[in-house]
């Protein structure tokens, strides 16, 4: 039994040691990179569902297998998470002892001067005339201001200074690694408490309020968000301006809007804002972005009994170059109480909309994305739209099943311009009244993103410090020249040795400068022609 416990403990200890070793961290880093790779190569659900669908169509055999192992949601998959969790455990396990270690080093004195300085990677020596040991050591002390130093008396009447510098390197290193951990925690916080919603708002003074998830067209909630406590604010979209270059390229988008949050909600006052790409509205801890735009044709239907309904629904741009759009504007017959009657007389206006019409015969296309000469090529469909079937359907089209079953029929097909009207067989008229623009707004909330930014800044500073600063040592030994005897004009031997404790070259020059200052410019401070001259690596794990 005892034995079992000891083996188990030994096993745990070895696992821990193994996990926190540099080599393991290295392997985990590689694994993480490899694990992220499919995320770049295979379409991801979170980014582009339609690409994923296409992938399923193109590789019907392969796709389900990939799906099984989470290849379409790499970044939320268990194996991806387990790699980075292991990495971070390894990191923390590596960091804590290093903090302690560094604290001890920080308190400790620089190591004693080695007996034989000439065996160090950097070395210089000279006999100075008319300089006493005291003077030489004082000069060295002055030169090494800013270094951590300690002085020793030596047996032969000489004295020495050990100096070390660059402790901040390790501090930077620790800051960098801890900031990585902090960044990950901040990221996780955002996933828990953040949310993101999409909504299309007509640019005709329509309002949107962040009062509940049902106001959104789509909504993605963080794990701890139930949608009841969204940051309260409202926006009103007054107009939408696009400035097009002659070649159809967009110069700029501007959404003229107003918003209210906080106090303004109770006093019902509005503040103006111009929403642009790269300039989100930041209010009430949320951000509002412009992520898309398009056209909404306005149709008015007049039934034979004189009742009128106007429909204004966003149509979907099919190409950003021409803004040719497709969609369906759907109507219930007004004042019909009988369910069956109502279901047989629903109307849908579907087809294409071109902001700048280009007709090839009767085929409509668009030659320019701006609203220069709008026209629509529409089919008017009458019958059962299938809206009550319980099955969801696209707002940009009609349910083709209803068409196939003959329950929805085309009653007119025509190209219309603004102001033109189509008369149906039963006397109903459909008029194309005009066009509005719509803006797709995204509302995002992430209470942790300033933390993430803070840690990102720390990462850069930590990295910079740890890569720029060099940990290095220098020793100065001063001794009376053996032949100077008792003469007052003392001759003194000054010896300087140096060692860089990090993997970075470049200490040679600093050492040369120190040696020059202490010994005069004409000494030979040769680096030793060894394979790894000038470096002694700190970590050997």
């Amino acid at each position: 039994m005892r034995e079992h416990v000891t083996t188990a403990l030994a096993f745990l200890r070895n696992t821990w040691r193994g996990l926190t070793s540099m080599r393991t961290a290295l392997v985990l880093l590689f694994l993480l990179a490899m694990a992220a790779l499919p995320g770049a190569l295979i379409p991801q659900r979170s980014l582009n569902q339609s690409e994923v669908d296409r992938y399923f169509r193109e590789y019907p055999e392969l796709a389900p297998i990939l799906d099984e192992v989470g290849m379409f949601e790499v970044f939320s998959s268990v194996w991806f998470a387990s790699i980075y969790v292991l990495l971070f455990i390894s990191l923390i396990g590596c960091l804590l002892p290093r903090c302690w270690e560094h604290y001890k080093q920080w308190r400790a004195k620089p190591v004693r001067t080695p007996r034989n300085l000439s065996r160090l990677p950097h070395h210089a020596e000279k006999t100075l005339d008319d300089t006493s040991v005291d003077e030489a050591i004082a000069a060295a002390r002055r030169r090494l201001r800013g270094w951590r130093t300690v002085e020793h008396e030596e047996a032969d009447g000489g004295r020495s200074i050990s100096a070390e510098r660059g402790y901040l390197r390790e501090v930077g290193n620790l800051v960098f690694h801890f900031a990585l951990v902090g960044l990950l925690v901040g990221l996780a916080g955002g996933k828990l408490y953040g949310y993101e919603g999409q909504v299309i708002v007509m640019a005709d003074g329509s309002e949107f309020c962040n009062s509940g998830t049902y106001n959104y067209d789509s909504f993605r909630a963080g794990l701890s968000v139930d949608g009841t406590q969204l940051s309260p604010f409202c926006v009103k979209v007054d107009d939408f301006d696009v400035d097009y270059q002659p070649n159809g390229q967009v110069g700029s988008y501007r959404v003229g809007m107003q918003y209210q949050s906080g106090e303004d909600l109770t006093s019902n006052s509005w503040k103006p804002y111009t929403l642009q790409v790269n300039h989100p509205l930041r209010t009430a801890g949320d951000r509002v972005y412009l992520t898309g735009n398009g056209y909404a044709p306005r149709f008015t239907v007049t039934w034979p009994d004189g009742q009128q309904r106007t429909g204004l629904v966003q149509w979907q741009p099919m190409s950003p170059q021409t803004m040719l759009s497709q969609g369906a504007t759907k109507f219930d017959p007004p004042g019909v109480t009988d369910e069956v009657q109502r279901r047989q007389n629903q109307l849908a206006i579907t087809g294409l909309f071109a902001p700048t019409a280009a007709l090839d015969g009767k085929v409509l296309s668009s030659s320019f994305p701006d609203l220069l000469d709008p026209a629509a090529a529409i089919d008017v469909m009458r019958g059962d739209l299938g809206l009550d079937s319980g099955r969801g359907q696209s707002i940009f089209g009609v349910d083709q099943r209803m068409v196939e079953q003959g329950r929805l029929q085309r009653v007119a097909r025509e190209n219309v311009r603004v102001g033109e009207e189509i008369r149906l067989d039963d006397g109903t008229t459909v008029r194309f009244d005009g066009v509005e623009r719509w803006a797709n707004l995204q509302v995002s909330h992430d209470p942790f993103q300033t933390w993430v930014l803070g840690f990102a800044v720390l990462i850069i500073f930590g990295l910079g410090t740890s890569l720029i600063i060099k940990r290095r040592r220098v020793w100065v030994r001063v001794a009376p020249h053996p032949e100077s005897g008792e003469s007052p004009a003392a001759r003194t031997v000054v010896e300087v040795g140096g060692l860089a404790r990090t993997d970075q070259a470049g200490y040679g020059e600093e050492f040369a400068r120190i040696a020059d200052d202490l010994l005069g410019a004409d000494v030979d401070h040769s680096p030793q022609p060894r394979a790894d001259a000038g470096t002694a690596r700190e970590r050997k794990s």
Partner: protein
Amino acid sequence: MPVNETLSNYSDMAYATSVVIYIAAMLLYFGEFALGRVATAAKAKETALVGAEKSAGSTGAKDVVGHVPSQPKRPMAERLGGMAVSMTVLGALVHFGSLLTRGLATERVPWGNMYEFGSAICLAAVLAWLIVLFRQLRTARREATPAQLRGLGGFLMLPVTLLLFLSGTVLYAEAAPLQPALQSYWIVIHVAAAIVSSGALMFAGVASVLYLLRSRYENNPLKMTKVGSRLPTSQALDRMAYRATVIIFPVWTFAIIAGAIWAEAAWGRFWGWDPKETCAFIAWIVYAAYLHARATAGWRGVRSAWINVLGLAVMIFNLFFVNLVVAGLHSYAGVPGS
């Protein structure tokens, strides 16, 4: 913001000229490399074995780089090398002119699409190379003679001219104003940092590839003798690759973070695993692994050099594959007609 046609034409002409000059420089480098045998091959072998750096002695020490040497009696190889460096400097100046006029013609930073971006990366790589060359001449403690160091030149100019050629043909885009998504001061910060790091990492990658060749030769002088014997010592190559990577790694980190800050304003989230983000992350991890490997026993030398080469491969993949093949948010930075 109309585009100034005259200036943009000058820019195109300067671009083509710089490619021609670079090709000439590359040929000169390789010329020196090939002829170098007479002067150095025999010694280089012994150099490699002894590990000392003092062979090829007095020659290049007093060279003024950028100045076509006129003393008589200089070996042909040396003269070619000097000319190669002069041509590189000239090429870089013309190349810079090309980017400058592009920027003036469009009144914006000259890195708004992939053609311009590729061009700027190449300029950054060439400048990184020139900086290394000049620093090496200045420092007292040499790891390689100028002639040996120049052996690297041709191998750097090869990918540079290839990338420039590709950018100038397949990826070429007419001078045009920026699209709305790119109208932000972050394009100056984020993309400039990405360019500088890509250029420097390209240099580091080439140095690591050569390190691999050279260390094969050093381990067994019968292998790769022709190429290996003329390259700088493996120690010098390793150190160049390491220093370039170490200096640029924080910049690369900064480029990614600046991208994230920009993405927060432009795309509604600071990180979303867009293909380019993912690849940037992978490249970052690989370079972090390289730096760690250099400090881990058993991974120094050949293994860490391979990691650096892998890093370069990820960068190139990121540049081409992600921009051209995968549809992502970065794609608009793109290519004509897409």
